[in-house]
């Protein structure tokens, strides 16, 4: 029960990584509110709160934070991806990706920081793609670099009251991962190639990311701030000539 007595807002908790974080936080004794652009999905664990909100809208983000009351933990997980290069990206693509991934994170942090309890923790979901470019994911990659930079600023400006860190997931088994493989000429070969590039020889599961989020949200992480915590099965430690490729 590492989060007993803590109240947490986890954005984008309907599915995938966000859902795993919601469930892990509840198991660890936290009070949890989550949100998304749609209605209450109806299958959230008992006791978990839901707010319908689009965090890219400053007013909705502010109302969402106010509805939560005094927070101990904010997890900015809500995010989208669009699989396009710069040249193919449209203005609506910009609004969507930058809106959700950048403005949304900024909006919730701006609203929450003044009212979070002392010793509060912000956990932003960045990505390995914020440091190395996934092909044809221009806006997404850039948006995650934004999240990493904002994470450091929040840590520097709002410590010691607030700690702020980012998790950089690698390739995690979610809808986003499947969509990425569908881009390839031979999706099955692309998957085999991808597995071979992971020293741990598997993709991640949402619960792998949730485990990191629990630690970062807990008092065990009191000295952790301003850093990126990469959970990727060793992939980014490896060169492209990883054994198993040739």
């Amino acid at each position: 029960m590492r989060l007993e007595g803590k109240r947490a807002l986890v954005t984008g908790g309907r599915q995938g990584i966000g859902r795993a974080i919601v469930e892990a936080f509840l198991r660890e004794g936290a009070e949890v509110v989550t949100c998304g652009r749609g209605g209450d999905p109806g299958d959230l664990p008992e006791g978990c709160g839901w707010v319908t909100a689009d965090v890219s809208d400053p007013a909705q983000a502010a109302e969402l934070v106010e509805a939560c009351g005094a927070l101990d933990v904010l997890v900015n997980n809500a995010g989208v991806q669009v699989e396009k290069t710069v040249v193919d990206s449209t203005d609506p693509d910009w609004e969507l990706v930058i809106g959700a991934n950048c403005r949304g994170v900024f909006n919730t942090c701006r609203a929450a920081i003044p009212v979070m309890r002392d010793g509060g923790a912000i956990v932003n979901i960045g990505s390995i793609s914020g440091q190395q470019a996934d092909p044809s994911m221009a806006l997404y990659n850039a948006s995650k670099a934004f999240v990493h930079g904002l994470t450091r600023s929040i840590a520097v400006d709002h410590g010691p009251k607030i700690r702020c860190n980012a998790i950089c997931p690698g390739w995690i088994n979610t809808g986003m991962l499947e969509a990425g493989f569908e881009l390839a000429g031979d999706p099955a070969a692309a998957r085999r190639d991808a597995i071979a590039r992971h020293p741990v020889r598997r993709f991640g599961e949402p619960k792998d990311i949730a485990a990191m989020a629990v630690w970062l949200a807990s008092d065990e992480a009191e000295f952790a701030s301003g850093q990126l915590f990469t959970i990727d099965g060793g992939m980014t430690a490896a060169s492209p000539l990883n054994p198993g490729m040739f």
Partner: protein
Amino acid sequence: MGRLAGKVALVTGGRGGIGRAICARFETEGAVVYAADLSEAGSLAAPDGASRFVRVDVSDEDSVTATMAMVAEEQGRLDVLVNAAGIEIEKTIEETSLGEWNRSFAVNVTGTFLTSKHALPLMRKAAEDGVSASIINFGSYDGFIADPGLAAYCATKGAVHALTRAMACDHGPEGIRVNAICPGYIDTPMLQSFFTGDGSGGGGKSIGELQQAVRDVHPLRTYGTPEDIANLVTWLASDEARYASGQLWVLDGGLSAQVQQMRI
């Protein structure tokens, strides 16, 4: 509690400032713990606790292989190896003798190589059981940015960071994860010695003033404790970290997140 239940762990530097906090925490979490160090007393008063002390010089291959043979006989496996043994010499390269340079590498880098190399067979035994075996090396925030007068130390920590990645890539498929923890300023005898030695940049300040100046430059307005490091090492040793490998884990109170400047 019990997050390391059923695991066998060896902690080099296990009687040092940080090492003993790791051993104590590992015991609380249910691990069988070997505290490996040059001397039982280490750098502080003798600790309480159930860690088995084993004398080892990590720079001496015979000493390392004898230690691993003993663990093999007593436990038949090793789940967690923490390479916390390290020394720090406060000198520029000009002031550092070749002997001192070599000694720094012998303990900090070669020690990590020797213990890891000779632990692999025992860790493979653990991995055969489906366990996610875990090696945690000690890098440092000094592997990223240079504190004054710590030339050999900074170099050894950069080496540990690169070795960590190589080990993670080579041994990941065997079920062995490898990470490096990179502490910032942690309240240990090593840090207090840095305050009192020539490398402190003293300028006539008292120790108390130096300590406060160091706290003030941290976004979290404190330096860390050995328990803070033990908290992250415990997480990395646990099954929750099964997907975490090949990374450098900086724990520094926000120190390296900022462009350095005085608040005037």
